[in-house]
């Protein structure tokens, strides 16, 4: 039976964003036995000795794209916008076959991208699986998330959608950092991108309230998984 004092202390400190190692250190320093402390952590993490999952673990089961799905409307967003653009061009008297092919291409590609996009918020990592032909899996520790964006463009505003965007400080994944042209800044260039690119993870086409809820869950996870050393130099 874990000590309730330890458990409540751990919960309290975790809520305040203190790293687990620091909590453990503080408890050991004040004279608690190591196994009592470990037992406390085990209880908090939800895998106590009991073979049955506790109520807490059930409640915090990993959230996936099934809970907050990318709406089917997203798949048709760029074809719709592109189609309207083509119609306007046609009325004006301009006609371009490559552009028509591109519109048809997005109409086929987007539903495929959508069905192949999976995310899951498990205990320590934001996991992402994406890609139709070239597959990519990404595991993002919550502790390194730098900021969370929630944005709506005009189309989103009309249809009640929103884009959630998560950024860390990674420079590795290339194309997020590439400027597409002089005229479009990075943030506009891949606004509609589904999934991970460069230092950003973009989840467009969420329902507004789903996006809000997902953001809240994510912020909770960030708070519960702080870095031991922030590297702030203070």
């Amino acid at each position, binding site marked *: 039976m874990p000590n309730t004092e330890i458990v409540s202390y751990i919960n309290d*400190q975790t809520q305040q964003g203190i790293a687990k190692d620091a909590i453990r250190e503080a408890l050991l320093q*004040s004279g608690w036995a*190591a196994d009592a402390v470990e037992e406390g952590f085990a209880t908090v993490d939800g895998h106590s000795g009991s073979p049955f999952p506790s109520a807490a673990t059930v409640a915090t089961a990993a959230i996936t794209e099934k809970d907050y799905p990318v709406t089917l409307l997203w798949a048709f967003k760029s074809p719709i916008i592109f189609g309207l653009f083509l119609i306007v061009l046609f009325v004006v008297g301009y006609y371009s076959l490559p552009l028509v092919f591109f519109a048809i291409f997005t109409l086929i590609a987007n539903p495929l991208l959508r069905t192949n996009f999976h995310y899951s918020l498990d205990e320590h990592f934001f996991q992402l699986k994406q890609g139709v032909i070239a597959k990519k899996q990404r595991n993002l520790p919550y502790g390194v*998330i*730098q900021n969370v*964006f929630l*944005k709506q463009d005009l189309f989103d505003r009309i249809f009640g959608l929103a884009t959630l965007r998560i950024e860390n400080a990674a420079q590795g994944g290339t194309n997020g950092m590439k400027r597409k042209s002089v005229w479009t800044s990075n943030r506009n260039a891949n606004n509609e991108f589904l999934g991970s690119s460069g230092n950003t993870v973009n989840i467009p086409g969420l329902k507004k309230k789903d996006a809000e809820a997902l953001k809240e869950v994510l*912020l909770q996870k960030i708070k519960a998984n702080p870095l031991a050393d922030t590297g702030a130099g*203070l």
Partner: protein
Amino acid sequence: MNIAMSKSREQFPLSQKKVLKKTVVGAIAWFILLGILLVFFLIGSLAGSSDISGWSGVGAALVVGLFGVIVVINYLYQKWYFSTYFYDLTADYIIIRKGPITPREITIPYERIQDVYVDQDLFDRAFGLFDVHLSSATISSGMEAHIDGVERAAADGLRNVLLKTLSEKIGRNRVTAAPPSPPAAAPVSTPINS
């Protein structure tokens, strides 16, 4: 119009002068743009044949009228923008939301903030306004995360609150509750492996 109020905005309000400044800046930009157009019309009316010169006069009047309409619309838009501008320094995050039609919201945990700075551009100096910037390690945060158009007292206040919270959150001397002490009677049963 309802103003998107938060605790932080109540304490450190956006200046009403922000609306005025944005309107003036917009007016100047349009003035230059339409001024060029006007010059073309005037040259047309001076150099052209008589029937075209008449139309050029009408064109010039239209341009002036258009300028007025644009300034009024811009003023109304800036008022709207001002009223939907939202920022809040909550216990754990900084939230900044702007844009009445296409809202953008950024949330930054205090622990991720790399930089806090206050600056003024030329027009800010004319109106006595300040921009409070904060930035995490991403490029887009530098573009999005700023509170612009506050007066000196609010700018200093915001900066002080931010810096104070930052050093509390990420400093070595951050405040942590003392852990509960074990009951004195309970013997430490197992040796602590060091």
